[in-house]
């Protein structure tokens, strides 16, 4: 499918700076203090990272992030056990075991990444919503907008919430009379994952109440993610329509079609 991207492309430095920094730290310590401190430092850094993918798994139940957690943990253990194995090659201990586990999990994580199973889908949601919208000049308004209705039962809603969360499409806030979905845009996830952000009021959200009323709110910050000044009214309506369509597909058990629609955009598998 050919389409013109409407969101601004992300800078590649956003996701490569951390591995590069880790490698630099490793080699600097290796050169200054030898292999043992370098491996320990790297192991320590991996250990610091472990809670992040594990938190994502706990919050979203996305199994891919359990594999990422396992990979980071195996890498950490391998780094910590490696100096001993290097010093005494006749007694490598558990290092080969950790190495094998790390490689297997690395392949799994690689496969999941290529297949966009680990991708936060908020950007794709925005692209899909922006597709039919025209550029008419700045028409932003900082207020929510009603965006139609979709018949939905409580059971269907619960199923939909699980699907949206597990597939990293949106964080869900369950309220008394409605569920509020916050599309998962890269960089916006940490406060939600670690529970430091308890509400969604300063973010873009789509709410669906149990009577089926859809309400959309797009923040100015997220509106500026688009390359052009899209018709804000149309954009809100389109985002509401998109969630209605997703919900309809979910009700029909065609969840995979939602993922297919997003994958068809062919955005970078990493965000």
């Amino acid at each position, binding site marked *: 499918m050919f389409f013109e991207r409407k969101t601004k492309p992300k800078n590649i430095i956003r996701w490569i700076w951390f591995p590069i920094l880790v490698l630099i730290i490793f080699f600097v310590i290796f050169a200054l203090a030898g292999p043992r401190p370098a491996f320990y430092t790297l192991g320590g850094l991996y250990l610091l990272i472990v809670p992040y993918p594990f938190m994502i798994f706990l919050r979203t139940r996305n199994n891919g992030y359990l594999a990422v957690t396992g990979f980071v943990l195996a890498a950490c253990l391998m780094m910590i056990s490696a100096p001993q194995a290097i010093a005494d090659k006749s007694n490598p201990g558990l290092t080969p075991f950790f190495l094998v586990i790390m490689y297997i999990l690395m392949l799994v994580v690689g496969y999941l990444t290529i297949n966009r199973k680990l991708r936060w889908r908020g950007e794709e949601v925005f692209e899909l919503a922006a597709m039919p919208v025209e550029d008419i000049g700045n028409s932003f308004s900082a*207020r929510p907008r009603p965006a139609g209705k979709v018949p939905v039962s409580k059971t269907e809603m619960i199923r939909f919430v699980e699907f949206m969360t597990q597939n990293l499409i949106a964080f869900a806030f369950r309220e008394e*009379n409605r569920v509020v979905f916050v599309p998962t845009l890269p960089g916006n996830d940490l406060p939600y994952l670690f529970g430091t952000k308890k509400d969604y009021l300063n973010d873009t959200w789509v709410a669906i*109440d149990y009577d089926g009323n859809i*309400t959309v709110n797009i923040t100015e910050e997220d509106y500026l993610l688009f390359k052009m000044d899209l018709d804000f009214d149309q954009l809100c309506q389109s985002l509401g329509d998109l969630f209605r369509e997703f919900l309809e597909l979910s009700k029909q058990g065609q969840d995979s079609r939602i993922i297919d629609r997003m994958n068809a955009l062919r955005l970078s598998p990493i965000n």
Partner: protein
Amino acid sequence: MEYEKAARLGAILAKDYSEDLFKLLVNYQDISASEAASRLSLHIRTAQDFLDNLADLEIVNKTEVFEKKRPYFRYNLAKSKITVTVDLSAYENENPREGLSRLIRERAENRANFTLARTGDEFSSVTIWEGEGRDRQEHKISLTSPQGKFLFHLPFPKSRPMSITGILEKAGLGEKYTSEIQNIVDELIRQEVIEVLS
């Protein structure tokens, strides 16, 4: 009675010394401001203002008299009963349906902030920022539920405008709310939050 006159009378009656002054007016044939002030331990200016206000409202008569060549005023009660009647129906919109066909939408780059109600399907208030720099002031208007529902369905800036009737219908509001809706619409037009396209 005109509202302004009633408000003035209300303010006079609310003074804590008014009852005592009326007692003097009822029991004296006439009285000067200095006599009343000395009798009630008031400042002469306070008694003078009170009596002059009553004279303006035609509750007392004010007569100029002379003591040798020095003129001063004496007051005597003109009415023994005061009735306050304000006809509030005069404020009723004569034709509440007038202007319902106006095409409206939110004005772009207005300085208003809408607050969503807990129910999530209406606004509870609209805050408008007035002035610039240090003089910038917040003007918060709390909305009734029908007003909140109406504004929730107000078209966005640059989108297709809708008639007030159309928005009322979309928001599921009955005709009985037209007056209060028109009231908030007119206020927000004045505050440049809403624009009228025809």
